[in-house]
């Protein structure tokens, strides 16, 4: 049974040795940069929230950055549907950072004019459709959008809790029936607020997805592994990847209960060091930190 205590093993789920070597250093560094962008940006979110500058509830992606970083690198999407924990998706796919800051600060200049807040991000330029805050409703909406315009590739992110909403599976099944171009991605952190999966259900998400005819894999949030499977599956949509990942903070807010099961960013950094790319990743980390710091400072000063 998967529990928080034993799930550290899942950080290697589905491992294929030597996969990182199949990607060019440039591509790997591009994915790493996206991960650092989210981490640096959200460290500034924490500062602003704890200082009282952000007054709306926030849903941090820290710890889960690799999923959207890798998917966005290999699945250029026309439409993107995510749910409440969506900063990482918005940033990895190239959403406007300044508008996200303003959104979190509740300003009219925010990406949803201050009306959507942390869970309700949209950016027409990247095709990201705003979420209203009800988990999993983004799944039938994504499927409907793919039905409405079959020429568009649709990415749909949701969590392991949302997967239990009754309308999620039936929508995935509808996508299979109508062969709709949707890439479903579950960011499986094992938690619905703080209730673990084993307490909520006995069935396996990927087995259930396969049973309704959806090509599906159950893997860790290793970005090279995700990249590999996205490339494999993207040509035969709809498809589904379930990524075991680790949420570092509370469901909402900046609090932390205990050490995370793993930190994918640190694991990836070690891999880069071993590959002799220490200088490059140090530069990326410094750049993203400095950039986030400056951007937040600039926007906070407007208050």
């Amino acid at each position, binding site marked *: 049974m998967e529990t928080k205590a034993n799930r550290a093993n899942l950080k290697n789920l589905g491992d294929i040795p030597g996969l990182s070597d199949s990607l060019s250093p440039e591509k790997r560094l591009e994915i790493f940069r996206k991960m650092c962008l989210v981490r640096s940006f959200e460290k500034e979110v924490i500062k602003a929230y704890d200082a009282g500058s952000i007054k709306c509830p926030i849903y941090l992606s820290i710890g889960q950055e690799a999923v959207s970083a890798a998917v966005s690198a290999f699945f250029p999407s026309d*439409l993107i549907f995510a749910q409440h924990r969506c900063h990482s998706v918005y940033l990895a796919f190239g959403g406007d950072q300044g508008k996200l800051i303003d959104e979190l600060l509740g300003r009219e200049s925010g990406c*949803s*004019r201050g*009306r*959507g807040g942390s869970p*309700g991000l*949209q950016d027409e330029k990247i095709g990201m*459709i*705003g979420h*209203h805050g*009800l988990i999993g*409703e983004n*799944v*039938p*909406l*994504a*499927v*409907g*959008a*793919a*039905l*409405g*315009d079959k020429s*568009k590739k649709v990415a749909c992110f949701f969590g392991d809790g949302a997967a239990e909403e*009754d*309308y*999620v599976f*039936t*929508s995935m*099944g*509808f996508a299979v*029936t109508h062969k709709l171009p949707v890439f479903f991605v579950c960011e499986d952190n094992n938690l619905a607020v703080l209730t673990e999966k084993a307490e909520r259900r006995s069935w396996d998400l990927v087995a259930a997805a396969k049973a309704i005819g959806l090509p599906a894999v159950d893997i860790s949030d290793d970005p090279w592994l995700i990249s590999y499977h996205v490339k494999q599956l993207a040509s035969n949509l709809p498809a589904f990847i379930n990524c075991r990942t680790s949420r570092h903070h509370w469901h909402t807010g900046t609090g932390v209960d205990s050490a995370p099961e793993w930190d994918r960013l640190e694991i990836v950094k070690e891999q880069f060091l071993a590959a002799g790319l220490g200088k490059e990743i140090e530069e990326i980390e410094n750049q993203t930190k400095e950039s986030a710091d400056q951007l937040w400072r600039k926007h906070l000063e407007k208050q």
Partner: protein
Amino acid sequence: MEKTLRETIREISRKHLTENNGILMGQCLSAVGWVDNTVPDCAGTVELPMTDVAGAGIATGTAITGRRPIFVIRFQDFIFLNSSFFINYAAKAKYLFGKGVPVFIRLLAKEGKGTGPVHSGVLHSIFMHMPGFKVCAPMTPGEYEEAWKVFMENDEPMLVSEHRGSFGQKEELANIIIPDADITIYAISMARFSVLEAVKSLEKEGIKCNVIHLFWLKPLALSEQMMDPLRQSQLGLVVDPDFEIAGASQSVAYELMTRTGFSVRALGAEDRSVGTAENQENTTPKPDKIVKVIKELVRQKYEKKSINYHW
């Protein structure tokens, strides 16, 4: 030859599908007579699986891509399963994200003949309660065409409360305004027909009634022309097939009272569940009941008695 409401709905839908890149979705569309012969047999109709909740979400998703879906709900009671996507996404999207998500929600009512506890309701009132919707109850071909035109010219979802009992209707329904009327009746949905029958009976008994047909429920467009007859008769009644308590009838009566200062009563479905047996039905107020209520109201008016709010 004039078209029926049924033919009007079918032809509007056909044109939308064949000329506007529209889409029409629902369950069991082709089965049992194409939803009372209101759905066209042409490309663009999508048979949904029997998943009420997800089906509404998928329809809402097609609206995001500009397809302006017609979503068919064969029985109004099913709306409780469908409604989250309409209430929480389609109706809020314009405010939240600056872009409307227009879905044309056809909500069909049927009553009598043992339709029972979950197939006989008229439930448009819950949508009047929610922001972001337009709500109407067209009973004639002309009204349906107007509803469709307004839908196409705006980017909000629209709840269209239909009633199968009116699908054969060809003629438009004009307001009845007569001098020195004793009461002004505001009628909604299928109650418009039972009110017209009741008024004929009342006339024979010397009670004169104005009748104002209410087709748009939200926004509730009460023009001065619609309220002047009430000012003249100084007594009103709103009749609606939906539940009376916290429903359209009470809401409209309150609005009329507030705006005119005259007493307006509400008459809708009773506050009880419905059984399948004929004597357990809870339908649109029937003409005899409307007659009884109006006679009592008019009697109280002239005796200057305080009005009893319990029928």
